[in-house]
């Protein structure tokens, strides 16, 4: 099995930053991939499959984070996670986080 490595740097666009709900959505999506997923912000490198770890980044709107995946499905993982973050974390009803910002 190939040890593919992919990464992308993205900006957090949703006004509330990476609070608990987006952190949960990110970790949930990351957990569907078998690749190891890490998120890097400044000098912090954390496990992208852990809600608690993502929250420790304290990533506010405008923060830059790098998503790194290592493993057989790294390319798909980075593509989907980047899509999730750059879409502003739409919730189940299709609203963006900015529209449903009370949580």
């Amino acid at each position, binding site marked *: 099995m190939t040890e593919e490595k992919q990464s992308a740097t993205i900006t957090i666009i949703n*006004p*509330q*930053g*990476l*609070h*608990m*709900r987006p952190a*949960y959505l990110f970790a949930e999506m990351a957990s569907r991939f078998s690749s190891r997923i890490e998120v890097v912000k400044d000098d912090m490198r954390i496990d992208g499959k852990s*809600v*608690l*770890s993502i*929250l*420790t*980044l*304290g*990533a*506010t*709107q405008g923060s830059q984070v790098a998503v790194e995946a290592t493993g057989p499905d790294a390319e798909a993982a980075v593509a989907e996670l980047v899509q999730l973050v750059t879409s502003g974390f739409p*919730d*189940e009803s299709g609203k963006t986080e900015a529209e449903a*910002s*009370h*949580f």
Partner: protein
Amino acid sequence: MKFCNFVKSEAIKVDLDATTKEGVIRELIHSLIASGSLTAEQEEPIVQAIMKREELGSTGIGRGIAVPHTKHSSVGQPVGTVGVSRQGVDFQSLDGEKVQLFFLLISPPDRPGDHLRALENISKQLQDDTFCRFLKQSKTANDVRQILEEADNNQFVS
């Protein structure tokens, strides 16, 4: 943001009586009301808002810990408290385990940075197993106060 900036120490509660998710949230809100951090009129809207947030996905993040929270315009600054349950409460947590340790947080909607910094601090400290174990073993509210104070002084995580 340190614990002392949002945890109302007079509202810390060990030996929670409630055995349900809503019951625990209500008990912690009652404790905040009794300590003068919230008014009785705020109880119902805030409990409803926290329960609505729980419907989007449990804030039971695993390892016996939950962080029920909401943003609510009736508070002007982050208001939080800590609760410990001996028997544990079914919180539909990610790992299916009962929750013994609760960090409840209510933040003003117009200050997302403060909310994030409070969550950041809670999550950083909760990654330390000793911190979690000490809190779960706390016998009195004063024990909890001391542990939070030590955490604020960086005695658990560097």
